[in-house]
């Protein structure tokens, strides 16, 4: 499953690069863009750091000054990885050659707690490594890093937004008699979403105990949906690639995993460890079943992560193409800008669809897994 998703991810990336290179027809541009992306995937599968990827990270550190890159064209890989990756400050825009960024606190635990901003990292004895992460300047080791990064800030804001919206909705229901009034405003907007998940839980988990699981499924659905849409939003409150970050999707998938496996019925565990199969299969089946149970959260993690990341990369490719073509004359750049904008609009619309579908798929699969674990003897 994981392999399949990585391959599809590669294909998506490849197609993005193809569009780009065919438009460009310049060998070094292709090298600049598709090579880092491909190497990054190789790196992802092998879990080692490729030198090209390191270079890009170094470039990210320089906060992409336009003057510097103009000579050799825009480094698309750098821009893309700046957007989809995590940072110690929230870089918003450039103004008169200076970066406009929200400074965020770096919190490092190593012989006590150190709190500083990125500008004062060196004074505190820390520096950024080739991946753009804080390391101890002397030993070069990663400390325990609990920094409020761009992703963490986005996580806090979106969670707060979700909390406020759902609590306001709940307040409407507390203050009004549902038997007398139809919901209005926020409540009318949130009710279909919540009830869709609630009904999904009832269908997949069963009448008996779906109420126990419905809040978790509602939470997962709305949280993913909110963050997916905030990720598509290109300016400040949004723009962080949160659901395209593997740590986030891993936590979500582990929540489902523990919910499934800590509340499973006897029947569920019997199916795993002592299934009713012919004798010669008895030793094999538990291995397969345990493996399948462990693979479920992995597939959930990779599916959401890869889909959202691929969407971000495709949109960024479209936007970058406009700037790449700027130096090839008004005719070529003008016509390709029109194409890019049209494609960008199409991809943004597609991403809105994907944002919903991925939230829905994650929730539905979670509910199905829970439903399987709540199986009873017939």
């Amino acid at each position, binding site marked *: 499953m994981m392999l399949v998703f990585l391959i599809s991810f590669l294909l998506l990336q490849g197609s993005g690069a193809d569009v780009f290179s065919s438009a460009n027809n310049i060998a070094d541009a292709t090298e600049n863009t598709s090579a880092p992306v491909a190497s990054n995937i190789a790196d992802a599968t092998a879990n080692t*750091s490729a030198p090209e990827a390191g270079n890009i990270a170094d470039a990210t550190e320089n906060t992409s000054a336009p003057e510097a890159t103009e000579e050799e064209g825009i480094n698309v890989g750098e821009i893309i990885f700046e957007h989809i990756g995590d940072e110690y400050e929230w870089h918003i825009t450039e103004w008169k050659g200076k970066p406009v960024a929200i400074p965020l606190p770096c919190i490092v635990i190593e012989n006590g707690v150190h709190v500083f901003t990125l500008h004062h990292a060196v004074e505190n004895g820390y520096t950024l490594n080739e*991946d753009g992460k804080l390391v101890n300047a002397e030993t070069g080791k990663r400390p325990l890093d609990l920094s409020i990064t761009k992703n963490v800030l986005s996580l806090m804001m979106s969670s707060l937004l979700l909390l406020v919206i759902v609590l306001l909705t709940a307040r409407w229901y507390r203050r009004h008699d549902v038997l007398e009034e139809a919901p209005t405003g926020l409540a009318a907007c949130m009710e279909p979403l919540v009830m869709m998940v609630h009904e999904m839980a009832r269908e997949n988990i069963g009448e008996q105990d779906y109420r126990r699981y419905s809040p978790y499924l509602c939470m997962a659905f709305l949280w993913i949906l909110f963050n997916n849409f905030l990720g598509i939003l290109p300016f400040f409150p949004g723009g962080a690639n949160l659901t395209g970050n593997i740590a986030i999707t891993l936590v979500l998938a582990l929540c489902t995993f523990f919910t499934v496996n800590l509340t499973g019925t006897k029947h569920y565990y019997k199916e795993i460890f002592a299934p009713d199969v012919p004798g010669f299969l008895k030793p094999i089946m538990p291995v397969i079943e345990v493996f399948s149970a462990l693979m479920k959260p992995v597939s959930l993690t990779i599916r959401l992560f890869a889909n959202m990341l691929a969407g971000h990369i495709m949109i960024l490719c479209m936007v970058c193409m406009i700037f790449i073509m700027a130096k090839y004359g008004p005719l070529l750049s003008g016509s390709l800008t029109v194409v890019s904008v049209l494609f960008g609009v199409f991809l943004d619309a597609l991403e809105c669809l994907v944002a919903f579908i991925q939230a829905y798929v994650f929730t539905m699969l979670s509910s199905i897994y829970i439903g399987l674990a709540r199986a009873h003897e017939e």
Partner: protein
Amino acid sequence: MSLVTPEFGLLFWMVVIFGIVFFLLAKFGFPIITSSVEKRSDKIAQSLKDADEIEARMAAWKVEQEQMMEEVRRQQSAILKEAADTKTRIVAEAKEEARDEAGKILAQARTEIAAEKESALRDVRKEVALLSVQVAEKILRHELSEEGTRQAFIDSLVDEAGKAEMRS
């Protein structure tokens, strides 16, 4: 690049924040919304069921009503038929009686007429007898006023008487 290696800091914050938000929403958010909406949908379902029931009862009533109408109509026609029967019977009876009465009256009239006739005849006979006696007296007186005739008559009477005596 750490694209597919989860960052510990982000994992930590995600667990903490997601946990807190989940706890708050699972306690104060979602159950209130879902229970309220379920209460409403239960009420709607109940109302629909009630409406169905009422409709079924109305239909039953209609059938019952039609049956009653049918019954009433049947009774009405039965009563009408009975009334017509009674009428014809009474008329027939009345005719019969009238005929009998008329017959009786006729018979009585006949006997009375017969009796009248008898008495009239008797009167007529008496009158005729009286008249004939008077006529005979007048004739005898007239005939006996002459001598020769008177003798002859006596003779004939004596002859007659003598013949009667001889015969006896």
